[in-house]
């Protein structure tokens, strides 16, 4: 879609046509008292040369550390074609064009993306992306309340093994809309939700249960048992999943008896760089029976008036431009660019390639845990199967250890002290396929040196 700016003549012609003397005249109805003439705290414009220099300085401040943090965003290898293609003019826009069907290529990318997400999650239908994993979880909670018409409680059980940032965002978005997100504490010995602990809630009116897989600690929940409990108690199941893991693990659509109702998560691991915290891209898929409650755009495949195949936006009657305040959400395709990157990344990898990535992540994380737990004062917090993250318990506070590692150019992991104070000195580490054996040895040597020093209280 080409970018065609208006010339001065275009602007003049349009203003003349509607009889308004100037652009400012379009805003006459806003009282002068409400207008902000200057923005305090916002610096003056810089020249291109100054901006380039500032940006280069800031980028250099990041350095190129060896990264062992996951905690919701993951460093994966992105094949060069992904961004070479995504930044082409035909694709380089975040938005679905207003005359969507005039851009068949854009709609086809959306359709392919939806097909891949639905296939990975073993769900019937996917939307064309959300903002990120955290807001996808919030939208899934809102959707569950709309979809579960017999439940009146709007109670959603959210295990504390769900990413704490996602939980905070989901609460912020949903609580003003009357939802009650209740935290479910995990078993401190296993770092997982004990399905038996849910028995105390059996028989209550619960709208939905969130099942994270793998959970924030990298541990695998008993998704089958949790799904069965939810079904037996009339609650919907919201799967919050890492999409890479789906290449090797049972997908949400096959959990328990009948599968999850909604699957959501962050598609950042597919082609989206870490980039100082975003933008990322959320995904959401569901069973066909809930499709009218699914927020966001959906591309469909159809035939035109002459019988030729093509793509179209479908089920638009749920959306804000038609249903106004009663729309399922105000989500559109503003992550369209990142959705395109995810689509191209997945297309390049294919099912076999994605499975290799997932298996490499598991293997590297096992090697990392094995190497680090040989050091004095370091042990794995939880037994049991995991994906590509693990919690380590240290014999001293984590923050100073991470500072010492950072001085060696190593980002050693995510300190759990703030979000999980009861866990003590706990460090969440991650190794994807991008960490080599040499990287792991480098980390182990550096941590060994830190641990070898006298523990500070």
């Amino acid at each position, binding site marked *: 879609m080409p970018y065609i700016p208006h010339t001065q003549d275009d602007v003049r012609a349009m203003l003349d046509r509607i009889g308004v003397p100037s652009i400012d005249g379009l805003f006459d109805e806003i009282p002068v008292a409400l207008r902000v003439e200057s923005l305090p705290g916002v610096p003056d414009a810089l020249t291109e040369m100054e901006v380039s220099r500032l940006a280069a300085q800031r980028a250099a401040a990041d350095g190129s550390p060896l990264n062992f943090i996951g905690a919701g965003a993951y460093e994966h290898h992105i094949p060069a074609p992904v961004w070479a293609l995504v930044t082409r003019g035909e694709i380089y826009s975040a938005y679905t064009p207003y005359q969507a069907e005039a851009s068949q290529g854009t709609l086809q990318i959306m359709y392919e993306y939806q097909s891949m997400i639905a296939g990975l999650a073993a769900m019937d239908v996917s939307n064309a992306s959300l903002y990120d994993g955290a807001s996808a979880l919030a939208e899934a909670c809102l959707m569950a309340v709309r979809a579960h018409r*017999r439940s009146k409680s709007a109670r959603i059980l959210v295990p504390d093994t769900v990413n704490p940032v996602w939980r905070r965002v989901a609460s912020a978005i949903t609580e003003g809309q009357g939802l009650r997100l209740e935290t479910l504490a995990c078993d401190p010995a296993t770092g997982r939700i004990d399905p038996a602990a849910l028995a105390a809630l059996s028989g209550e009116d619960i709208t939905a249960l969130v099942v994270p897989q793998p959970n924030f600690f990298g541990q695998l929940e008993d998704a089958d048992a949790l799904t069965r409990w939810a079904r037996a108690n009339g609650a919907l199941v919201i799967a919050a999943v890492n999409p890479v893991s789906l290449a090797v693990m049972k997908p949400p659509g096959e959990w328990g008896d009948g599968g999850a109702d909604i699957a959501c998560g962050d598609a950042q691991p597919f082609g989206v760089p870490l980039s100082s915290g975003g933008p990322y891209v959320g995904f959401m898929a569901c069973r066909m029976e809930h499709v*009218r409650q699914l927020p966001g755009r959906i591309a469909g495949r159809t035939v035109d008036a002459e019988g030729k195949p093509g793509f179209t936006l479908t089920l638009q*009657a749920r959306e804000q431009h038609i249903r106004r305040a009663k729309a399922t959400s105000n989500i559109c395709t503003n992550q369209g660019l990142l959705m395109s990157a995810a689509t191209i990344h997945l297309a390049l990898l294919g099912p076999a390639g994605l499975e290799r990535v997932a298996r490499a992540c598991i293997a590297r994380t096992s090697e990392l845990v094995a190497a680090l737990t040989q050091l004095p004062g370091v042990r794995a917090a939880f037994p049991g199967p995991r994906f590509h993250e693990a919690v380590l318990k240290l014999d001293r506070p984590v923050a100073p250890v991470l500072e010492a590692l950072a001085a060696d150019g190593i980002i050693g992991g995510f300190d759990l002290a703030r979000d999980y104070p009861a866990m003590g000195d706990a460090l969440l580490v991650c190794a994807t396929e991008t960490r080599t054996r040499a990287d792991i040895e480098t980390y182990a040597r550096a941590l060994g040196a830190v641990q070898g020093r006298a523990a500070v209280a």
Partner: protein
Amino acid sequence: MSQIPADLRYTRSHEWMRTMPDGTVEIGITDHAQQSLGDLVFVEVPEAGRKLTAGDACAVVESVKAASDVYSPLTGEVVAGNPGLATKPELINKDPYGEGWIMRLKPSGGAAAESFDAAAYEAVVAAGG
């Protein structure tokens, strides 16, 4: 020209009401409403047991070009939603005053929406309401 049966009551938001022998009230949308919406592709009907106050949005009718709420003209409890609409939303297009009924309500007294007889409703439609 749309059909407006003489034996029903009507609202400004294009619902019709038929009082049944057992005192319950059958509610649907008018011929004029279904013509304005076009071919219906989905209808969400209320569940039995739901308590409604007059003016509450109680159902959604979705066509290829729009989705609209249906408002309860009366206060009361839903006795039944039309189960046939789940698979055949077009019943509303084909037979809006018969097989295309949306719900049956047991009125509990209390607030009711302004309603009209056939002649007055015809005037509402003619005025573009």
